[in-house]
């Protein structure tokens, strides 16, 4: 079958290096992949067309790129299913500098992976015998160890788009691979040092929970879910002195006590009620909200039967010491 691809190209050696679009029509097998079509362009039409690929079987992670606006492995997507309005749009992966055509520079990707120290760091005395991890714990890790480092999640991360310092979904998911490993950290398997480091700015709390990474990951790693698990681990390990942890706690408390969200009190509780400079920063917004009649109710009424919601909190979270 004939397929038309609209490819974003870039030649760094051009007189005026600017990205540009180019259409190619190639003939591939009816069940051919986007990668088959791209290879056909390189082999039959333009030998200077650059892309990375290797295994063609969704194992090596080389061919992650944006197809119709979203990251994915070109070798995993069948070309006929990707045709939108007659064409398949192909761009290099996002959030990484383009080297040439569909080839991007992965240096920042690897730097972030290295930043989380991707190896076991057991604390305490050296064990006298081999540490046998439970089957259960290893099965739990099998989801996150499926990561093939293709960079699809990084490509479409909405935070990295505005902040290149964010550790990002791949590195944070990789960090969880270690924090959730019973052999890492102290004798109880709690990776306190790691968790403390990851609660710093550009770490776990900077994720917006937009789910782009979960959607585009070709291996079901669900990086965002791992980031949420990291937050839970960090709070359980006592790292609660962050706006993120305070926000989660304040949110949870509000629902527990009234059944719904008390927005008025959520902001001061999140930034810290003693953090006067941060609170002052919100003053103009609060005044604006007040003058426009947008202020949430000052008296926050409980929902009907709010006591039943509280009972569910007690039953599921365990009784609290208020």
């Amino acid at each position, binding site marked *: 079958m004939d397929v038309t691809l609209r490819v974003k190209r870039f030649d760094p050696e051009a007189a005026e290096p600017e990205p540009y679009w180019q259409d190619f029509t190639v003939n591939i097998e009816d069940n051919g992949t986007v990668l088959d079509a791209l290879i056909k362009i390189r082999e039959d039409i333009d030998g200077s067309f650059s892309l990375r690929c290797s295994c063609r079987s969704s194992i090596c992670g080389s061919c992650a790129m944006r197809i119709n606006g979203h990251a994915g492995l070109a070798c995993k997507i069948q070309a006929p299913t990707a045709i939108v309005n007659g064409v398949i749009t192909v761009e290099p992966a996002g959030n990484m500098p383009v080297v040439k055509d569909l080839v991007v520079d992965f240096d920042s990707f690897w730097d972030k992976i290295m930043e989380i120290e991707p190896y076991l760091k057991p604390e305490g005395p050296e064990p006298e015998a081999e540490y046998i991890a439970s089957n259960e714990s290893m099965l739990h890790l099998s989801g996150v160890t499926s990561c093939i480092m293709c960079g699809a999640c990084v490509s479409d991360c909405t935070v990295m*788009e*505005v902040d290149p310092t964010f550790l990002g979904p791949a590195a944070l998911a990789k960090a969880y691979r270690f924090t959730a490993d019973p052999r890492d950290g102290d004798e109880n398997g709690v990776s306190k040092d790691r968790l403390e480091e990851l609660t710093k700015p550009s770490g776990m709390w900077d994720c917006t929970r937009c*789910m782009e990474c979960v959607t585009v990951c070709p291996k079901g790693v669900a990086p965002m879910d791992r980031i949420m698990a990291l937050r839970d681990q960090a709070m359980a390990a006592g790292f609660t002195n962050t706006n993120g942890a305070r926000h989660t706690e304040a949110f949870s408390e509000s629902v527990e006590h009234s059944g719904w969200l008390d927005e*008025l009190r959520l902001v001061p509780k999140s930034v810290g009620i003693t953090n006067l400079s941060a609170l002052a920063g919100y003053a103009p*917004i609060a005044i604006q909200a007040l003058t426009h009649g947008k202020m949430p109710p000052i008296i926050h009424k409980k929902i009907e039967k709010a006591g039943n919601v509280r009972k*569910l*909190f007690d039953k599921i979270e365990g009784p609290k010491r208020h």
Partner: protein
Amino acid sequence: MKYAFFPGCVSRGGCPELYPATKLICEKLEIELQEMPAASCTGAGVLQEKNELLGDTLNARTFAMAEALDLPILTICSTCQGVMSQANHRLKDPEYLAKVNGYLADEGLEYKGKANPKHLLWVLIEDIGLDKLLSLITRPLAGIRMAPFYGCYIVRPTDALEFEEHPERKDALEKIIETIGATVVDFEGKTRCCGFPILTINERNSMAMVSKHTLEAKDLGADAMITPCPLCHLNLDSFQPKAAAQAGRPIGLPILHMPQAIGLAMGLSPKEMGLQRHIVNTKPLLMKIGAEASS
């Protein structure tokens, strides 16, 4: 049609204009809304960070209440929609459902797994029909260039949101824009994050997201942006001046809740739609629509 109404927290809190605007257009559309005064917050994904089981149980409680009323659930918040859909997706596992029902038994509730929570956006297309909506349009927003902003929770994850069963959900907002007579401004940022979830955590990034999306739409000639999510609205409207200051560029792009845009096209007044509550000035837009005089 009658629905169990789940307005969410924000339409009664930080975006109080949304609730009455919804009520008014639903009246015109003959959508009857039955309140559920004992329904709790969905957890918005935040509570789920701490305890997913607890979040799912709270949502199952709401679903059970709607089942008791024998009504489908209608929400006007994308975040509520997403969180409810995700909970419902997990609750398809009979063992998990039984566990959750165990917690609900004390209150005499049982969730049978039949709830199908739907955002008003989907209700309009799937249950009411665009023809019916079109028949109620008396002031088409002709000449208005409108950028759809979905945000995250009503487009991801696609399995829980049943996009495969309902392919029309993918461009539902565009269909609404066309039905009310406006022109769609397609832009990359339409399904990106508005930045609201990290507002108190990393304000700089949150504001960068606001300016990125609003400026992209504005540069493509948008007169306004329309969103089905009140949380997106909070960030894109209330914080737009702050985002503009950070970006060093004026923005001034009015952000309309979906029901407001529909209401204006139905001939309802800007005041009825609560536009005076917006932070970004909507007057130039209303003049263009020809709705300014009735405000």
